[in-house]
């Protein structure tokens, strides 16, 4: 059957897009929440570049939607120049039309002048690079365990293990999750894990209590050692001091999203898909020194620092922010803190994270891909060390709930 890429301009086809989303992500119940996606695109209408949002669909001759791709624009500051770049997102194609995914992505790269993508799926990355995007590098991923309740019981040999297994025999249905699943988009792994049954029996309650107690004690010690005397406070919103901080960072860092106060108000305001968030800030005599934006997922089990940005070189500020973030996540009952970030002068270093009890995760890392029309801008953007970037800055975190 003939399939063509068309601009998504007919509201009556939105139902078809929702159907493709549901069929493409059968393991992700949230996609049934059509209102969420409607609200997402409505939210983007309040962005200053709303007129440059593109959506395309793959349409059969019988007017059936079999694929979708959106392009969302943002302002970036590259080598001191304000530049608009788009990011592909909400990309899905029904399996039997998989070949045509290439046509959708090709339409994207032909339409947009500049592109910045933060992706995880090898298939998508391969298609993007084939169409001219260049891999700038990988973002880091570190996690910190606050509560062991979601952990399956490890294999303990001997009579103790046998005793514990007898106490916690898994239900047969749980075994399904032991099989290797498909590659999932950013954030899906965690959310699917939160919703799906665990593969093995949970830890017995007394063991959980013991381990959680030990984690709390270790945390208190680690956060105490890492304390720098700086105080992170919770803010209600983003005032003009965020404009000043952004300009100070942009004067030093060659590539970054334009995160002034207006952007942050839009990004994390009441109509944002990630609302509610907690905003933390550290101030000094010279004004705002850094801030963090924290999100607890709807399940309450995962905590995400969506943004953590400090004056370049002020790792003490970054440590104070992340330390306070851990305390807030713990108070909220979060089990695990998942921090995806780019190592830069405006964020934390690996040592800082270790000191705060985070462990690096090698898999499930996001890859930044860039394609800028101007060769000079592209040259700067393809060097990851030129960037300051947080996962919440763009599309990769738009779907975190």
């Amino acid at each position, binding site marked *: *059957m*003939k399939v063509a890429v068309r601009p998504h301009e007919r509201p009556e086809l939105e139902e078809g897009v929702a159907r493709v989303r549901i069929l493409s992500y059968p393991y992700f119940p949230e996609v049934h929440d059509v209102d969420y996606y409607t609200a997402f695109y409505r939210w983007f209408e309040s962005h200053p570049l709303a007129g440059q949002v593109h959506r395309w669909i793959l349409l059969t001759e019988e007017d059936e939607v079999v694929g979708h791709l959106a392009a969302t624009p943002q302002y970036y500051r590259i080598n001191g120049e304000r530049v608009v770049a788009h990011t592909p997102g909400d990309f899905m*194609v029904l399996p039997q039309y*998989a*070949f045509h*995914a*290439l046509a959708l992505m090709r339409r994207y790269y032909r339409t947009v002048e500049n592109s910045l993508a933060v992706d995880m799926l090898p*298939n998508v990355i391969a298609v993007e690079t*084939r*169409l001219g995007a260049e891999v700038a590098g990988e973002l880091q991923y570190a996690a910190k365990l606050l509560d062991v309740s979601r952990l399956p019981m490890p294999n303990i040999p001997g009579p103790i293990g046998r005793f514990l297994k007898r106490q916690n025999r898994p239900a047969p249905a749980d075994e399904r999750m032991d099989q290797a699943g498909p590659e999932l988009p950013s954030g899906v792994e965690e959310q699917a894990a939160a919703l799906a049954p665990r593969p093995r029996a949970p830890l017995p309650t007394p063991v959980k209590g013991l381990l959680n107690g030990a984690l709390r004690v270790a945390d208190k010690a680690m956060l105490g050692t890492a304390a720098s005397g700086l105080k992170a406070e919770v803010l209600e919103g983003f005032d003009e001091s965020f404009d000043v901080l952004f300009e100070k960072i942009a004067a030093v860092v060659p590539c970054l999203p334009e995160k002034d106060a207006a952007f942050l108000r839009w990004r994390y305001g009441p109509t944002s898909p990630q609302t509610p968030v907690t905003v933390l800030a550290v101030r000094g005599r010279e004004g705002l020194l850094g801030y963090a934006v924290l999100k607890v997922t709807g399940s309450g089990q995962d905590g995400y620092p969506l943004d953590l940005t400090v004056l370049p070189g002020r790792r003490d500020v970054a440590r104070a922010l992340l330390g306070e973030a851990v305390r807030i996540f713990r108070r909220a009952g979060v089990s695990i803190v998942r921090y995806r970030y780019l190592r830069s002068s405006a964020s934390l270093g690996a040592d800082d994270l270790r000191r705060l009890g985070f462990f690096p995760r090698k898999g499930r890392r996001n890859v930044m891909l860039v394609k800028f029309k101007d060769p000079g801008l592209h040259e700067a953007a393809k060097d990851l060390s030129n960037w300051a970037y947080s996962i919440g800055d763009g599309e990769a975190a738009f779907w975190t709930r």
Partner: protein
Amino acid sequence: MAISNGDARTEIRGWLKENVTGSGEVADDYALIENGMLTSLQTVELVMFMEERFDIVVEDEELDEENFGSIDAIAGLVESKAAA
């Protein structure tokens, strides 16, 4: 570089067998895309193979159903590119 349609057909058939169909045989006029056999990623990999093996450059606009719809079509594309 002159490439006969037969050469290209044999090479593409071999690549598909190794990377897509496994032990299954595919007729030269079998509708690869219509039958959902060739995904985007496989097309990307096939293009990389073609460019390397036949010393040709496949343009983005040539990545469509018409040129990749069957082994016959792909072989035809290779032949026309090599002759250009």
